[in-house]
């Protein structure tokens, strides 16, 4: 064991502890706090893995937005009754079984050479002409239109995945919208009242939001040839929107506005239109013309950022009665 490994081991242990704590905390409140802490540890791990942009996005989503969502949900739930339940015997015995089987698996894997092969990325029977994936990415970078391998993979080599991911986010919002007709009117009133906001909080929000927008813009702009990209930028912008909304500085986001719906859809629409256009007028589905690749990718990223930011904000601070419309 080298000294280099120490932070990783500490972080991993911390992560497991937080996860355990969030699952088995005695009260709802403790569990939520530990979950937020869990998100922060994940962010640290991203930073440690050399992905500061993902660390920021994780902190914004995993700790920030999810924390707000959890707190809002907790307000709608009935007060929790003090639970002193004892876990039944089957629970403990299944836990024991799980531990034993995990240990057996672990010992088997550790004694097996396939583990050493894994992660090295080298397949046992690589033929002479097939290069490993990172090499292929490096070789194709010149034609990708961007300067950073992650962006090239996300928006060019595997653009189809990213297009579908945008749809996943959109679907999450559609799914959440289904739940609102069931919200009781009185509860809504409670959930939406913003208590008289303190001046200091307002001032801080006014200071923080532009900083977040700046960071988001930077991440988006940097995505072309460094760590960053639409999703991270969208998360930053959403965090800014949520802060402004919670302090009452931003008016309610209502689903009935066409502009808002357009903002939610535009990322996927533009992306899909590009795909269709390349199919009809170009060389095929998602084959960007080389000289246009950079411009197309930037355009898609900008619109995707907008969609991601608005969708995430709506998920967290959308107006229930408006969303259900």
């Amino acid at each position, binding site marked *: 064991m080298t000294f280099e490994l120490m932070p990783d081991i500490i972080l991993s242990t911390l992560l497991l502890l937080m996860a355990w704590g969030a699952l088995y905390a005695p009260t709802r409140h403790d569990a939520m706090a530990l979950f937020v802490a869990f998100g922060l540890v994940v962010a640290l791990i991203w930073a440690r893995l050399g992905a500061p942009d993902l660390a920021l996005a994780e902190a914004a989503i995993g700790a920030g937005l999810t924390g707000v969502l959890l707190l809002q949900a907790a307000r709608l739930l009935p007060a929790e009754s003090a639970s002193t339940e004892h876990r039944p015997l089957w629970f403990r015995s299944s836990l024991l079984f799980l531990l034993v089987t995990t240990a057996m698996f672990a010992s088997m894997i550790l004694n097996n050479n396939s583990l050493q092969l894994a992660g090295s990325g080298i397949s046992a029977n690589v033929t002479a002409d097939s290069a490993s994936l990172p090499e292929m990415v490096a070789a194709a970078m010149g034609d990708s239109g961007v300067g950073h391998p992650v962006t090239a993979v996300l928006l060019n080599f595997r653009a189809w995945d990213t297009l579908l991911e945008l749809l996943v986010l959109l679907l999450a919002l559609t799914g959440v919208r289904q739940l609102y007709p069931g919200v009781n009117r009185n509860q809504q009133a409670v959930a939406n009242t913003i208590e008289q906001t303190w001046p*200091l909080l307002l001032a*801080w929000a006014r*200071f923080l939001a532009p900083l977040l927008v700046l960071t988001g813009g930077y991440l988006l702009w940097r995505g072309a040839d460094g760590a960053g990209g639409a999703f991270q930028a969208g998360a930053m912008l959403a965090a800014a929107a949520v802060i402004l909304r919670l302090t009452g500085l931003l008016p309610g986001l209502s689903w009935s506005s066409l502009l808002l719906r357009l903002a939610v859809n535009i990322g996927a629409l533009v992306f899909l239109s590009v795909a269709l256009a390349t199919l009809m007028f170009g060389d095929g589905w998602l084959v960007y013309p080389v000289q246009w690749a950079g411009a197309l990718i930037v355009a898609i990223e900008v619109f995707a950022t907008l969609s991601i930011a608005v969708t995430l904000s709506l998920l967290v601070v959308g107006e229930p009665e408006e969303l259900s419309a």
Partner: protein
Amino acid sequence: MSGLVVIVAWIFMIAGTVFFVTGALGLLRFPDVYSRLHAVTKTDTLGLGLLTLGLALKSGSPGTALLLFVIWLLVLASGAVNCQLLARYNLELEARAADTDELNRQGGNHDV
């Protein structure tokens, strides 16, 4: 010379860590919200300040030092604001609890 700077930097960083540990101890051991906030924010500010100072010295480049200083300022401001917000929230909670107590007592008197 540079050896000396590194040693000083390490001293700063260790001192900063010690402050963090003290803050954590205070958070665990102090009796009420205000004193806990006091412990956490004071030592955070100082601890982070010493850490960034140490790191800035170690990095040796003015640009990085400036960045670290800005980070420290941001955390400083956010710590101060959060402390103030938490304290105020707690104060309002206490006031509200006192009010309800008062009301209950009055209600009880009326019943009698």
